[in-house]
């Protein structure tokens, strides 16, 4: 089912995009086991769309990679470096906060509910991390931020705060903010689910552009099957904290092997 282990899952590709290798990852909330012995590989530069029923653990996968949730056990490698572990002698030891921060700088995430900073303008939202975390000068960060805003079609909204923007505009600013730190892998958790239907398109267009540029690996959780078919290199069907099946989107969508996948896709289509 999955490709042999000799493929360059880890490390980064020529464009600087980073791969991910998850091995035996477990995560439970109390008695609710959400990720079970999960093995998942993402190639550098690959665009993987994760689908699956509600509560199957899709968000949790992205959150453990973003270090918003700590796995109970297992290892996660990002761009060739262990995320939660550091080399110690022959083995691994739990990573220090400093190590985690260092690996984390390769990862970016865009959230379902945008999570923009409401007390900052669009421009300030985008400039914050480049200036405070990456030590860019304000002028440099401002120029980059304007370029990014222009890229998502919102240069005119630079001085507006999230309260003044529509949902689709907020999400485009949030994407620009995440891009500003040049992540080698970007995680998108249902980034169009909170939007009015007529605003979904403008956000998907921005995602298409990012995919086209190919500078970053993309892991996307979405219910937009048409978009998945068009953009994804691989579709991963997730159920009960494990990969149920995975493959090229056309294969999975048109000829799902597993009954659970057929059931799920049927439910999504009827929707």
């Amino acid at each position, binding site marked *: 089912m999955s490709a042999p282990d000799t493929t360059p899952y880890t490390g980064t590709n020529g464009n600087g995009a980073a791969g991910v290798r998850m091995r035996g990852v477990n995560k439970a909330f109390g008695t609710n086991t959400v990720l079970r012995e999960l093995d998942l590989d993402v190639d550098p530069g690959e665009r993987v769309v994760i689908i699956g029923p509600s509560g199957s653990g899709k968000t949790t996968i992205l959150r453990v990679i*973003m270090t918003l949730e700590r796995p109970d056990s297992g290892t996660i490698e990002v761009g060739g470096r262990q995320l939660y572990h550091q080399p110690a002698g022959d083995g691994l030891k739990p990573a220090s906060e400093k190590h985690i921060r260092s690996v984390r700088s390769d*990862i*970016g995430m865009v959230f379902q509910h945008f*999570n923009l*900073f409401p007390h900052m303008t669009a421009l300030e939202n985008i400039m*914050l991390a480049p200036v405070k975390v990456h030590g860019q000068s304000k002028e440099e960060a401002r120029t980059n931020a*304007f*370029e990014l805003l222009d890229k998502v079609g919102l240069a*005119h909204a630079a*001085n507006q705060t999230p309260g003044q923007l529509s949902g689709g505009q907020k999400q485009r600013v949030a994407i620009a903010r995440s891009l500003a730190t040049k992540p080698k892998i970007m995680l998108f958790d249902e980034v169009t689910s909170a939007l009015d239907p007529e605003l979904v398109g403008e956000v998907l267009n921005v995602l298409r552009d990012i995919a086209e540029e190919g500078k970053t690996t993309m892991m996307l959780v979405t219910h937009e099957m048409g978009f998945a078919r068009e953009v994804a290199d691989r579709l991963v069907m997730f159920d009960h904290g494990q990969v149920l099946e995975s493959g090229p989107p056309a294969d999975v969508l048109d000829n799902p092997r597993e009954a659970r996948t057929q059931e799920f896709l049927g439910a999504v289509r009827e929707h």
Partner: protein
Amino acid sequence: MDGLLLEANQYRLLRDGAWVTLQILGLAFVLGVVLSLVVGVGRLSERRWVRGIALVYVEFFRGISSIVLLFIVAIAIPILLGVSQASILMLGSLALGANMGGYGAEIVRGSIQAIPKGQSEASIALNLSNTQRLRYVVLPQALRIILPPFGNLTIEILKGTALVSLVGLADITQAGNFIRQQQLFGDAGTDRTILFLNILVIYFVLAQIINGLFRLAEWRLEKRFSGGEHLTPLDLPEATK
């Protein structure tokens, strides 16, 4: 109208008293704000012992009455330590500031907890450090919740400054007492009701000034949330045209 006013030298006494009151208020406020922030953030620390110390601080300084605290800090401690020269003004401010810190810390803690978790998560995703997250993301938003109750708390401290007359400081209240004694034993024939009315007005005006300053701060903060205008193509930097 004339009947409502005091004599010029009496106003001079009250003015000097008001200056002492303001000094104590200012010192207590600065200390109170610092303690509120440090202890309020400490209440939410990942480290148990930090949380523990912060909790003990809050419970102690909220539980103890300010007047008892004032006597302990301004009188008992200098005697015990044998420092007779200690400035009562400093010690009085210290007591009031510590008191304010106890209440302020709980306001700060509550306001930080009221900020949606998504704000912290976005900060982590942007790789801000814990301190940066607090400083640039959480506290500026918490301030919106903190300011109104802090205005009230500051006025409480203003009222609390009257207690320092009990440990011998010449604040407004003490100046008032002094004038009262002059009235009783001297020939200044002004009515005591008029005296108290004047003192009341002075406190009232000070409280209104505090109110006004806090309103101004709230207004300025609110402006940050409400954002600016659409930019026209002319406003945009060259690179994006």
